[in-house]
C-alpha cells in the first residue's frame, strides 16, 4: 500500500505559447525546457527538487531523454522517454504516478513538445514507421489526413452521420478557443464557414484537420509530502492503456479504449455520467466521437445526437481549450494538451472558460497510426482533491 506521504498527484502545469511558425532560433530542447521550468514554478517547487523526468518529442533526436536532463541541469533517479505520439502524454503520466507512489521519485516533470516546420512535418510523416515509409509515402498520401478521411467515411456510413455533425464539433471547440488566449485560432467559426471550407481529403475539410504548431506542455507529479501550500492537487483516480489492440485488422472505428473502459470507471469508483468535463484526443472530429463511444460517454450510442446536443450545446464541456483543432497540435505535446487543460479546469484556474465547480474529468490520448489508423490509446479519470488540512 502506498504510504500517505507518497500519494501522487498533479500539482503544476505549463504550456508554452503555441505558434504556427516557430520563432527564429527556437529549438525543441528550448521549448521543452521552458515548459518544464514553468510547470515546476507553477507547482511552487524548486528546480533542484526535481528527481524524475519523462519526455516525449518527435524532434528531440539525436538527443535522448538523458541528453535533455543534462542540458536542463537535472540529475534524476528516474528517467523515461516515450514515443507513443498522441498517447505518450498520458502514458508518461501513468508511469510517473506509479513511480511516485512506489517512492522511486518524489517530484517528476512530464514534458512533451516539438519545434516543427512544414517541411520537417512532411519528412517525419513520410518516415513515420517502416510500413509508412515503404507503402504509404510512395503514394504521396499526404500524411494521416487521407487515412482518417476514409475512417470518417466508415463512421458516417455506420452511424448515419453527415458533414454537419463533424462541423458541430469543430464549431463548438472554436467557441471554447475564443475563451482561451493560448489558442492559435480564436475567431468565431460558423457552421456555414465549416461547410464552405476547402476539402483537404474527402470528406475532411480544413477545419477537420489540426493546425500544426510549435510548443510544449508539461505537468509536475509530486508526492503528498512535497505539495506546497495553496496548491490544488489533482489526483489520477484511474488510468488504462491499450496498444495494438487489433493488429490493424478492423475498421478503426473502435479504439483500444473500448477494451478497458469498464476497468477505467471501476478503478475510479465513478461512472462515465459523473464527469463534469472531458478532453478527448481530437486529431480528427471522428476520433472524438469514436473515443467518447468507447469510453461510455454516449450510452445510447447515438453519435449524431452526441455531436449536435451534448457537444454543441455544451451539455458536457468537451475540449474546453479549443482542443488541438483550434488551439493547435504541437507534435508530441498534442498528447499532453488535453491533460494540461483538464488539470487547470480542476484547479479552477481556467479563466474565462472555467467550467463551474469542475471536480471530476476524463481525458484521453490516441495515436500512432501503424498503417490505417491509430494503435495506441490511453484514458485517465482525474479528480480535484479536497484538501482536509
Amino acid at each position, binding site marked *: 500500500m502506498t504510504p500517505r506521504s507518497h500519494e501522487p498527484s498533479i500539482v503544476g502545469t505549463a504550456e508554452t505559447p503555441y505558434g504556427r511558425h516557430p520563432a527564429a532560433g527556437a529549438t525543441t530542447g528550448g521549448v521543452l525546457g521552458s515548459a518544464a521550468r514553468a510547470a515546476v514554478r507553477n507547482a511552487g517547487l524548486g528546480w533542484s527538487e526535481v528527481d524524475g523526468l519523462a519526455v516525449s518529442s518527435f524532434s528531440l533526436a539525436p538527443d535522448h531523454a538523458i541528453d535533455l536532463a543534462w542540458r536542463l541541469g537535472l540529475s534524476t533517479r528516474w528517467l523515461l522517454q516515450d514515443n507513443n505520439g498522441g498517447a505518450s502524454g498520458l502514458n508518461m503520466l501513468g508511469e510517473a504516478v506509479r513511480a511516485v507512489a512506489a517512492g522511486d521519485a518524489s517530484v517528476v516533470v512530464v514534458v512533451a513538445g516539438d519545434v516543427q516546420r*512544414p517541411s520537417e512535418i512532411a519528412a517525419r510523416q513520410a518516415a513515420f514507421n517502416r510500413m509508412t515509409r515503404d507503402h504509404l509515402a510512395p503514394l504521396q498520401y499526404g500524411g494521416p489526413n487521407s487515412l482518417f478521411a476514409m475512417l470518417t467515411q466508415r463512421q458516417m456510413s455506420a452511424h448515419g452521420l453527415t458533414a454537419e455533425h463533424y462541423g458541430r464539433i469543430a464549431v463548438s471547440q472554436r467557441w471554447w478557443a475564443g475563451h482561451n488566449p493560448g489558442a492559435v485560432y480564436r475567431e468565431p467559426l460558423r457552421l456555414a464557414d465549416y461547410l464552405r471550407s476547402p476539402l483537404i481529403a474527402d470528406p475532411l475539410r480544413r477545419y477537420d484537420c489540426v493546425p500544426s504548431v510549435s510548443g510544449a506542455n508539461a505537468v509536475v507529479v509530486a508526492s503528498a509530502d512535497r505539495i506546497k501550500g495553496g496548491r490544488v492537487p489533482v489526483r489520477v483516480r484511474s488510468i488504462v492503456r491499450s496498444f495494438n489492440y487489433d493488429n490493424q485488422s478492423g475498421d478503426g472505428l473502435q479504439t483500444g479504449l473500448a477494451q478497458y473502459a469498464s476497468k477505467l470507471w471501476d478503478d475510479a469508483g465513478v461512472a462515465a455520467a459523473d464527469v463534469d468535463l472531458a478532453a478527448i484526443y481530437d486529431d480528427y472530429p471522428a476520433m472524438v466521437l469514436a473515443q467518447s463511444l468507447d469510453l461510455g460517454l454516449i450510452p445510447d450510442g447515438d453519435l449524431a445526437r452526441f455531436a449536435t446536443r451534448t457537444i454543441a450545446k455544451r451539455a458536457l464541456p468537451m475540449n474546453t481549450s479549443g482542443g488541438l483543432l483550434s488551439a493547435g497540435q504541437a507534435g508530441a505535446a498534442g498528447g499532453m494538451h488535453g491533460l494540461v487543460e483538464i488539470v487547470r479546469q480542476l484547479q479552477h484556474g481556467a479563466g474565462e472558460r472555467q467550467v463551474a465547480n469542475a471536480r471530476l474529468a476524463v481525458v484521453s490520448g490516441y495515436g500512432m497510426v501503424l498503417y490505417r489508423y491509430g494503435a495506441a490509446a490511453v484514458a485517465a479519470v482525474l479528480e480535484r482533491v479536497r484538501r482536509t488540512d
Partner: protein
Amino acid sequence: MDVLTFFSCARCTAPYFPRPICCATCGGARFVTADAAAGVVEEVTCVRHAAGTGSTEPNWLATVRLAEGPRVIARLPGELPRDTAVRLLLQRDGAIVAVRAQEKTS
C-alpha cells in the same frame, strides 16, 4: 510492376499484409507467400492538398480489401466507385496500385 503478394501463416493460414514476424493468431513465425491480385474497393478519398509539400494535384486513394481478407491502401487511376473489383500491383517504389479488374496492364 509485380503482382502484390500477401503472407499466409504456414501453421494456421491466417493472412497478412505486410509480412509479420509472428502470427497474431497462433504465434507461428513461418509464412508462405501468395499472389494478392484481387481486391474490392471500399472507401475512396481524393487528397486535394498534401500538407508540407505544397502539392495540390488530386490524388485518388482507396482502402482495398483483398480477397483473402487484409486491407491495403492503394492509389487509383482516378475515382472508382465503392465495390469495384480491382487488381493490385506493387510498384518498385513500394506503392500499391489498383486498376479495374478487367483492364490489362503492361
